[in-house]
């Protein structure tokens, strides 16, 4: 029986694969069906997953095993319940408490993380002696990194009209951005084609057994 069910499963998967592909031609009943099933299933999956992977082990299991030792967990529990007050318009304001704690905390975490990894470490990585490279291409590359970073940062300078001389570094910054966008685009092509290969491999191998 499991073998038969597995075969049925593969046919199901193939059916839904085609439903999504059909969207490339135009919107159609098959896509509408797949879309609603996808949204419904994934919302259901998310809910069950959160209950089993977060709410039960991180909250209820800890509280039921050792209530007095985990008293502090009553705070997130209460905050979670406060979120649910949004259901009634009259009590909606209560949900601002948990939201403001979440936002205050995560704002500070983001500030610290950005300052460290995106600002300080990137600045540090740009502080290099460009002439230390051993080859011409390495030295030219180092110089490009320095010029590109400085001009790029300047491009984002908002409190001055960028005209005349001030326009030059900002223009150079834009050129670097464009080269980078093109390169990132080109670099991603391979990964995206791989995704399609994966789907076609499923159709041709697991479903149709045309290739092995």
């Amino acid at each position: 029986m499991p073998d038969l069910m597995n075969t049925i499963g593969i046919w199901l998967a193939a059916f839904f694969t085609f439903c999504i592909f059909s969207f490339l031609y135009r919107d159609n009943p098959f896509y509408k069906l797949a879309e609603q099933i996808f949204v419904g299933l994934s919302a259901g999956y998310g809910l069950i997953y959160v209950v089993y992977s977060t709410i039960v082990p991180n909250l209820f299991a800890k509280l039921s095993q050792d209530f007095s030792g985990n008293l502090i967990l009553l705070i997130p529990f209460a905050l979670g319940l406060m979120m649910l007050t949004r259901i009634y318009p009259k009590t909606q304001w209560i949900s601002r408490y948990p939201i403001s704690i979440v936002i205050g905390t995560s704002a500070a975490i983001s500030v610290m993380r950005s300052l460290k990894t995106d600002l300080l470490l990137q600045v540090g990585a740009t502080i290099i002696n460009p002439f230390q490279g051993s080859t011409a291409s390495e030295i030219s590359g180092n110089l490009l990194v320095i010029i590109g970073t400085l001009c790029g940062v300047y491009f984002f300078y908002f409190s001055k009209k960028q005209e005349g001389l001030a326009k030059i570094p900002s223009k150079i910054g834009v050129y670097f951005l464009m080269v980078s966008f093109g390169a990132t685009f080109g670099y991603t092509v391979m990964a995206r084609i791989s995704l399609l290969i994966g789907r076609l491999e499923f159709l041709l191998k697991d479903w149709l057994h045309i290739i092995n």
Partner: protein
Amino acid sequence: MKHIYYLLIVLLLLQSAMLWANTTSSFTISDKPWDKGEALILNWNLPDGYDRLNLQKADSLMVYQDMELDEPLVSGFVDDNLDPDETYHYRLIAYNDALADSIFIEAQGQPKENWFYMHKLSFLLLFLILGSAIVFYVMAARRGKDFYIRRISGLDSMEEAIGRATEKGKPILFVPGISELDDIQTIASLSILGQLAQRAAEYNTEIIVPCRFAMVLSAAREVVKEAYLKAGRPDAYREDRIFYLTDDQFGYVAGIDGIIVREEPAANFFLGSFYAESLILAETGLSTGAIQTAGTANAHQLPFFVVSCDYTLIGEELFAASAYLSRDAQQVGSLKGHDFGKLLVILLIVVGIILEIAGQGWFKSFLMGAGS
């Protein structure tokens, strides 16, 4: 005679062994400073001539066990991954094979929690400088100082987009990114949503906001409701047009794609944190002929917005947008603070490079301390 001879040799050996063992040797253990009480520094001073060293640590039953070491022992060792305020006992044994002798010293130490991470000093200084600059400019703006902001071309679309939607009688679609409320990009996006919703309310144009997370949904509803109130049209606010789809990345995208092709919004806004789905959304939107404005600080997704949208907010422009649109003095002041930060960064890089070329490495290592 022969016996005496042997005795003499033995005595001599014994004496040199005694000498070796008696030479002042020390084994000290101190707390590693500026940390959270996780490490002890072990130092020792031994006479020359030992062949092997063995370091042992007492386990919870006070039985000494050999420590597994990744590197050869020289004159010191840092034992980390310890618990603060626990007492740890160590034993250092030095063997001299030729003399068949060994030195054996015991010591103990207690890791302590300290009150500052010294290696983060540069980090703290930078934080204080940037933070005070931002606060300073916000205060100045509050007192009525007027700051200039250059044009952000990605935002020229807003009026055009609302105009087009009104003209066609079609809605506007606003996607606040796929991150939770803990991502500042989502919050920046929501404050742009506030500006946009207010204008949409003034023109009586409908705005659709699908959300990936329930907390984003809650905040988005607050923001839009407030905008309609400000526009003097609280009656026109429709809560059901701001809705949750699913937490799943691609399920969410499938739902939005459906909305784009069926409701055919006249204008699409994709602002916030986006990942792989950026191109799926932008290409689907393009096929319906909507005016598209996108913006994200996720650098790796920008190319896809740039090629498929009419206007793109690049990186920091997403955070500047709300100030630009609202001309709110405090936001504009804060933007001025960011610009101070940019000048500071440029200065740090230039000075740093000059010092590097001059062979002065201390500046860079001071700056990078926080990364370790």
